[in-house]
């Protein structure tokens, strides 16, 4: 009897949770006069500024805002007679269905282009809205490669995709370990189990095998419930792996660092792939000595670029926190849309879309050259960089032309 009640209650709970997921039905392109008239050119920014992703979402909204200010300070859109640019913002709350309806709202309000969204699941939905309304959508942070397999004409992405990062990670691992005289033979992989971690682990495994490395054991985990990684690290220790690859988020990465410190597996290096923690100042300070010498392959703001330094200094001064890579990517994404408007000389979203496809902008994030979008919408010059935590700071260490210091291929314990 009690059990039946409990099941009924849990069922109702599940229904309630599901009830929040109804999507909104967008109704064709509705670009009002504000976008095409004499007012400012509107760029829509979609980020999760409430909910558990709020810290990053707020960072990215501010990054986009700084880009708009920079554009206006240097004279607005020249090809439109110096028209000013305005950022219209929306909160996705980290939820795909909210992102979808908010994207529709921004487009109805006359946005000539959208930037966002930090989460692949939200970006997937926004990309559909953008495609249907024929408004360009430039993604700042969106790891999943799946969005780019539908042949969307209006989706663009500044950051390197998940596959590109993982392949670079395998590549860098081989080169750095060989340079250090201890070529990596067997690599253990620990990854969180959603699309993000699994995708990163899959492509890394394929690339590493191609380069002659063995992969295993491969262990996945649920980042939302895991509270202790001692068993998993013991499993790594019991194997004869030289390197441990970790693809995870902040909380789990910290727990993994604690477990590594407890178990002390016999490794040559800890190697983050698209890791959400190892390149964040927050992880560096919270993990302290535990995180020392961890490597991380990811997209990153270009620490060697004076313009990036200026931007980050301004951000720190105004908002009192270090500017994260995500925010710098938002900055680049807004610049890409503005360049598209400049190129098109029009605020018609279809023309802006073609403008973005032709435009080139100098990124403040690490890349192999100016941001330029290929036919699939991916930034052809996007690149991942290898970083390492050295003496309590995240340093770019590889490839050499982007390096701030040399990689130290060793572990701290």
């Amino acid at each position: 009897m009690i059990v039946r009640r409990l099941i009924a209650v849990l069922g109702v709970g599940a229904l309630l949770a599901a009830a929040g997921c109804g999507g909104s039905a967008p109704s064709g392109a509705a670009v009002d006069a504000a976008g095409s008239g004499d007012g400012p050119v509107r760029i829509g920014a979609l980020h999760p500024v409430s909910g558990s992703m709020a810290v990053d979402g707020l960072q990215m909204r501010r990054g986009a805002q700084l880009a708009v200010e920079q554009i206006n300070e240097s004279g607005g859109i020249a090809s439109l007679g110096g028209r000013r640019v305005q950022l219209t913002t929306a909160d996705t709350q980290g939820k795909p269905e909210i992102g979808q309806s908010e994207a529709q709202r921004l487009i109805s309000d006359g946005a000539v282009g959208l930037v966002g969204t930090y989460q692949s699941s939200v970006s997937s939905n926004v990309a559909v809205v953008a495609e249907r309304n024929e408004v360009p959508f430039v993604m700042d942070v969106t790891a999943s490669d799946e969005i780019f397999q539908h042949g969307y004409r209006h989706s663009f992405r500044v950051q390197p995709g998940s596959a590109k990062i993982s392949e670079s990670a395998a590549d860098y691992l081989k080169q750095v370990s060989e340079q250090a005289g201890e070529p990596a033979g067997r690599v253990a992989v620990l990854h969180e189990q959603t699309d993000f971690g699994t995708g990163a682990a899959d492509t890394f495994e394929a690339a590493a095998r191609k380069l002659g490395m063995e992969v295993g054991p491969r262990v996945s985990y649920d980042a939302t419930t895991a509270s202790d990684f001692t068993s998993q690290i013991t499993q790594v220790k019991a194997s004869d792996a030289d390197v441990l690859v970790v693809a995870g988020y902040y909380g789990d990465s910290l727990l993994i660092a604690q477990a590594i410190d407890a178990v002390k597996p016999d490794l040559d290096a800890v190697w983050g792939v698209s890791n959400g923690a190892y390149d964040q100042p927050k992880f560096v300070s919270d993990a302290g000595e535990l995180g020392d010498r961890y490597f991380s392959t990811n997209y990153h703001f270009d620490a060697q670029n004076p313009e990036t330094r200026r931007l980050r200094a301004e951000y720190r001064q105004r908002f009192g926190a270090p500017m994260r890579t995500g925010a710098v990517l938002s900055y680049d994404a807004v610049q890409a849309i503005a360049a598209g408007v400049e190129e098109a000389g029009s605020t018609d979203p279809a023309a802006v879309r073609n403008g973005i496809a032709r435009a080139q902008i100098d990124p403040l994030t690490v890349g192999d050259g100016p941001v330029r979008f290929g036919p699939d919408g991916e930034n052809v010059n996007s690149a991942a960089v290898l970083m390492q935590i050295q003496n309590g700071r995240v340093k770019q260490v590889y490839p050499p032309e982007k390096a701030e210091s040399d990689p130290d291929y060793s572990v701290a314990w």
Partner: protein
Amino acid sequence: MTTTIDTDAPETRAPSATLAVLKRAGVVGALVAAAVAVALVQSGSGIVVWQSVVTGLLTGGLYGLIAMGLTLIFGVLDIVNFAHGAMLAVAMFISFGVVAVTGLHPYLTMLITVPALFLVGVLVHRGLLSGSGGATLENQLLITLGLSLLLENGLLLFFGAEPKNVGLPGETHLDVFGAVVAGSRLYAFLGAMALGLLLYWMLQHTRLGTAIRAVASNSAGAELVGINVRRIHTLTFAIGAACAGAAAALAVPLLSVTPTLGEQFNITAFVVVVLGGMGNVVGALVGGLLIGLVEQLTTIYLDGQSSLLGVFVVFVLVLFLRPQGLFGRRT
């Protein structure tokens, strides 16, 4: 409505009932031993399995501690408290705040979190649940669910989503026959066991405990013999909440403190409650240990697929084979 709280004093319990419990414990023990043996074959490494067992038991103690408060509230008040996880989060933030401001040892914050959560429990029960608004099951569900949203978003508003960390001063690692055990996890486990026994003793051997069991067994009868049922309900809810407060102080060095951390324990705690028998405090503790083990062993069986998969397989099996829980009685 009757519930599964032990209402007999131990000495008057029929010997056959004790025997049945022992028999079930034996079956469960045999199943666990078999599961460990399969894990050994599967992984081929003794140390990996041993580490998993140790980790599983230590984590399980924490689950048991969290589930104890939930099961007590459910057993006596028939309230499924969806806000239990959120209350845990509130207590963790209190603990974090006290450590950050005063530099107190994290475990000593229990002196503050327990009374604070007790008070929260009193206020929530008196203010939200005990009136006519909380009379029906649907209303209780909506009230506790709404409360959890309110608490979580309140924490988000005041503390932000940035995870907070509390270190344990003098953290060490112990070697238990080859398995590594962090001191903080061992202390949390021992604390959980001690609190579980304390709660059990309180229920069995104090006037308050007897009154709680009487209300759980038959609230109309309890009222007839002069027990203030509403007061007992409030006290029970408050004690359940205080359990979350104690769990928070013990667990705060182990986790990143975030406003939404309660979610990750809510589901597991409900499974533990069902497994151990709803309303059975000792059952919750044992159920917690079992679920901790199941989680870790699932990781070995399935090469680290979601450990929740194994937990839910066990959950479904228990509902199917023994819906009153391992240590509950048929109602």
